[in-house]
Every structure is written in structure tokens, then in C-alpha cells.
């Protein structure tokens, strides 16, 4: 049973054709070896998909966020894992919006061609997750350099990236102009960083996500790595976070489509007591329910993406839409993941069906990049005007 998708046929087809070269066996092996899917990322880069959001004058395709969302959705719907490469897509808008012309001219053409990989985003710290403003990593200006000291955690793909977007404190919290002031954003060149005071430690996790923690010990970067103005970093990453949530939402929709397709195929062909198990409504209904839930989430994701592209998604409205898109899509994909395992019965646990792998991967997104509770709290306080809880 195909899940029909009427719009962007050429874009969807192109992603599907590429992903067809990376079947389940490829991902199972990477998962088993905990290896980075470098070949897949290289193929995506070569075909221009990772440069989707980079404007044409810098060698990209200048796509809208909605089109980029379709790319990410199709990668997941094909059973592949875009998490190996999605960071560049979601930090791109921050760089485009707030980077200087010199920074764009220096980095974007090489990122578009694949020569430079921008896949790491250093925000979270062991003592500050959702509470971004409490982060402690310091960047202190010394002449024409900044000296970085501190630690980042859950920085995925750092070992497979040349550049990192790094958020660090440039003014101590009590000296900052306001609560949201005092953080600065840097585009850091990590190449040969480990000989200059940067150390990357991989963290083993439930799924193959190449995540790490990074330690900075008097790590020096040139002052021109600063994006925009000093102290304004938090504001800059906020709009980027909306893009990230929309793109992650699209990935969840793709995952949900994969689970629903797998479950439908299996339920239609697996025979028990001489009839396909999908003939039983007890098996059918959960699949149908997940389908409806996925379609609803898909509408929200696409609505948020279009609003982002048109500029309506700025400010509070954008935060609301992007957050709800990510909330609904991550829940739709997690329901579908659970349903898919249940439909497969024991075979859902066997590696060669890919269901257990996708199940583990799908679990992440009700937690990251922002947890469900933090979204609910945002909606309650900022949309509905309920009393602040923190």
C-alpha cells in the first residue's frame, strides 16, 4: 500500500532514488558497528541535498524550509536516518540571517560543495539543557581572539564535522544587560582542534547517533568567528530553533510513514490461522489510527514551514507553530513506532526487519531537541497566558 503524496513529486522522487541505494542492510551494519553513515552523507551532499537551503549565489539550491522539510521527511520515510546530517540544515538559517557577508562568502560555497561539513551545534551543557540561559561555557575576548573554556554535551556528529556553531557566554550572568543577553554565537573551525585545547569524547547511546561531549581548555578562536553582535547569541539561535523543530517534525512524519507502511505490508501478508492478520480489526484499527494521527501532524508541520517561509512565522506565532508541529509529529511517530512493533509481534524485535532500529531512533524525538513538557509549558504560558511555572 503506497502512502500517496501529491506535492513536490520531483523532489520526493529524487530523494527516494538516492535512498534506494542505502537499504536496510546498510543501516543495520552501521547500527551494529556504531559507525557514521559517511557514504550516505557523501551521497546526499554530492546530489546537492545538504546544500538545499544555501542560496544559489553560494552554490546551493536556495530552497524554502518547506522544501527542505520534504527532503528530510522522505529520507526518514525511506528507512534511512537523516539524523546523520540534518544539523547543517537547521543551523543554516541562523548563519544566513545573522552571519556577515564575509562569513557567508568564506564558508557557504565550501559547505555547499561538501568540502566543509557544518554538522555540529554546541548548545547543551551538563548543567543546562532546556535552561539554555544558564549555560556556563565562557568565551573571553583577548585581542583578536576569543578564549573558550567549558564543556558541551549531546553535541552530535562533532567527530564528523569541520565546523561547529557554538553558543558561549561572553558576559557573566550577573553582569549581562538582561536575562537573555550575554550569550554569543560563534562559527568555530574544529579542524585540528584537538591539538589546540579541544577534546571530543563519544557518548554511547541507545541508538547510533554519533553524539559526543566536548571539552574546551583555553581553546582559542579568531575574533571574526563571532556571528553578529556580541551578547546577542540567544536571540540568534531562537529563530534557528524554530527551523530545527519544523525540520525534526518533518523527519518524524517521515518515520511515521515508514512505520505505517511497514505495518500495513506485514499485516497484509502475514498469515496466522490461514488468514492475513490484517484482516482482524484489532490489528487494522491501530494502523488506521496512526495514519490519521500522522496526517494531522503532517498538516501542522507543513503549515509551520510555510509560515516560516512567508515570514509570518516570526516571533511568538512562529514559536507556537514550530513547537506544536514538533510536538504532534514526534507523538505521531512514536505512536506509529509502538504500533509497528505490536503489529509485527516477535518479528518486530528481530534486527532484519529494521523495526526495532527505527523504534529506537524514533524514541529520541519526544525528548530532543526539546522535550514534550517544555513545549507544553511554552503553549500554556506564552500562548494561553497561564501563570509562569519557572
Amino acid at each position, binding site marked *: 500500500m*503506497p502512502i*500517496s503524496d501529491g506535492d513536490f*513529486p*520531483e*523532489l520526493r*522522487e*529524487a530523494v527516494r*532514488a*538516492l535512498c534506494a541505494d542505502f537499504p536496510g542492510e546498510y543501516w543495520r551494519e552501521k547500527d551494529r558497528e556504531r559507525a557514521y553513515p559517511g557514504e550516505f552523507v557523501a551521497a546526499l551532499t*554530492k*546530489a*546537492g*541535498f545538504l*546544500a*538545499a537551503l544555501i542560496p*544559489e549565489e553560494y552554490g*546551493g*539550491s*536556495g*530552497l524554502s524550509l518547506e522544501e527542505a522539510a520534504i*527532503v528530510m521527511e522522505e529520507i526518514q520515510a525511506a528507512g534511512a536516518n537523516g539524523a546523520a546530517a540534518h544539523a547543517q540544515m537547521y543551523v543554516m538559517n541562523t548563519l544566513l540571517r545573522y552571519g556577515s557577508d564575509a562569513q557567508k562568502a568564506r564558508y557557504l560555497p565550501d559547505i555547499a560543495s561538501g568540502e566543509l561539513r557544518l554538522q555540529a551545534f554546541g548548545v547543551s551543557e551538563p548543567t543546562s539543557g532546556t535552561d539554555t540561559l544558564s549555560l556556563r561555557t565562557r568565551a573571553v575576548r583577548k585581542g583578536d581572539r576569543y578564549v573558550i573554556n567549558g564543556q558541551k554535551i549531546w553535541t552530535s556528529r562533532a567527530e564528523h564535522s569541520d565546523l561547529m556553531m557554538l553558543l558561549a557566554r561572553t558576559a557573566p550572568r550577573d553582569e549581562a544587560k538582561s536575562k537573555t543577553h550575554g550569550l554569543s554565537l560563534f562559527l568555530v573551525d574544529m579542524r585540528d582542534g584537538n591539538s589546540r585545547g579541544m577534546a571530543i569524547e563519544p557518548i554511547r547511546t541507545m541508538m547510533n547517533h554519533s553524539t559526543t561531549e566536548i571539552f574546551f581548555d583555553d581553546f582559542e578562536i579568531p575574533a571574526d568567528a563571532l556571528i553578529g553582535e556580541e551578547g546577542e547569541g540567544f536571540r540568534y539561535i531562537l529563530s534557528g530553533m524554530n527551523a530545527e523543530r519544523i525540520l525534526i517534525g518533518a523527519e518524524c512524519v517521515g518515520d511515521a510513514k515508514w512505520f505505517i507502511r511497514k505495518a500495513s505490508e506485514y499485516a497484509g501478508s502475514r498469515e496466522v490461522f490461514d488468514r492475513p492478520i490484517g484482516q482482524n480489526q484489532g490489528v487494522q484499527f491501530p494502523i488506521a489510527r496512526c495514519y490519521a494521527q500522522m496526517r494531522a501532524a503532517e498538516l501542522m508541520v507543513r503549515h509551520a514551514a510555510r509560515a516560516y517561509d512567508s515570514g509570518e512565522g516570526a516571533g511568538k506565532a512562529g514559536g507556537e507553530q514550530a513547537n506544536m508541529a514538533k510536538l504532534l509529529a514526534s507523538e505521531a511517530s512514536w505512536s506509529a513506532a509502538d504500533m509497528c512493533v505490536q503489529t509485527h509481534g516477535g518479528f518486530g524485535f528481530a534486527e532484519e526487519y529494521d523495526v526495532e532500529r527505527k523504534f529506537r531512533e524514533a524514541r529520541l524525538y519526544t525528548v530532543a531537541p526539546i522535550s514534550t513538557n517544555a513545549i507544553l509549558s511554552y503553549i500554556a504560558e506564552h500562548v494561553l497566558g497561564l501563570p509562569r511555572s519557572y
Partner: protein
Amino acid sequence: MKILVPVKRVIDYNVKPRVKADGSGVDLANVKMSMNPFDEIAVEEAIRIKEAGKAEEVIAVSIGPAKAQETLRTALAMGADRAILVETDDEVEPLGVAKILKAIAEEEEPGLVILGKQAIDDDSNQTGQMLAALMNRPQGTFANTVEIEGDSVTVKREIDGGLETVKLTMPAIVTTDLRLNEPRYASLPNIMKAKKKPLDTKNPADFGVDIAPRLKTTNVSEPPVRQAGEKVEDVDALVAKLKALGVA
């Protein structure tokens, strides 16, 4: 030199075709359609010839419904320069297709027409040959390799038991076999550029070609279901079985 590449929109090769209940044909409702794989090879070959500096322009042409535009956009995204859609909702038989292609070729004057040896929907394997006959041009069918030198094209043909090499004076017609090349994926920038490339729409009447069918499909049926095999213990049992079945 121009290269003309006719492409056909057909049922996707990954789809298992279902016959309509009344036996009048294959059910195409909500079925994934794609470019005929042999035509994809033809597009790839034409682009490679252009990239090698031996052609200036690649023109893709399709005869079929409005949706065949998607197929042409695929050809444009792979690297064709412009496209022509001859729009019709009628089924056009190979002779009709060949006549329309002849009319287009007379207008465009391509040095080469490269097309798939057959379309995977009706497996006719006739259009290229008919076009060559109608235009009185040399033909190199079932191409395994294509090399252009000056005003001639050398085609290695896949024939029973080996390869045959023919040298044709251009303008010529070449039909592609499976091993000629491996078609590329369209890259994202090229997919976006393809949307801006010119695509002309015509209809068969513009070329004064009568496409009325000369053949009538009387019945289409599913292939017989293959029966399960049987394992035998040893050679003696096999021989006994074959004898019992009357085949040895």
C-alpha cells in the same frame, strides 16, 4: 549537433502490474509511473555525448498525457536542454509514435535520435526501427556502446551470442540496450533548474499525423500462477518421475 531523445511514461518497473477485471488492459489507476528504463539510458547517453563536447543540445520528447510532463522534467533534470510534449490521451501505437518523431526530427534536424529499444509496458520493440525506415536513415539497435567520430557513429549491438559492431553515417537512429550505461540521479540544483527549462506542448494534429489505432487489444490476462515444485531424493527418483510425467 542536436540529439533527440524520445521518452515514454510507463508503469514503474518496481510495480507489480494488475490486470483490469474485464481483461481490457492493465489497471493504471493510482499506480506509480516513471520514465521507461531504456529511455533513461538513452537520456544518459545523450547527455554523456554532450558532456564529451560532441553535441550541443539534447532535446527530450514525449508523446502521451499531460502527466508525461513529469517524465520530461526528469529528463531535463538529468541534463536535457529542452523538451517537447506531444499531448494526447489516446494510446499511440509504435507506428504513430514513429510518424510523429519523424515530423519532429525533420523540424529539429538532429544528428542522432537515441531511444530505448522498447518500452516496458507493451514491449513492442518497434519504434526505433520504424522511425529509421520512415526517415530512410541508418539504424543501430540494441546499443551496448556508442562512439561518435566525425560524422559517423559506431554502435556495438547486443545480438544473440555476442556483439556486432556497425558504423553508421549520421543522421542516424540508435536504440539502447540495458548495458549501455548506468543513468545518473538528478542532483537537487539540476532538479530546480529543470523547472525553468523550456517545455513546448504540441498535439498530434500539429504534425498532421493520424494516430488512430490499427490494432485492437482483445484480451489481457495475468500470467498463469506458477505451481510449487517437488523435491526428489536422488537421480533415480528424478528419472522415474520424469518418465511418469511423460517428459523423458
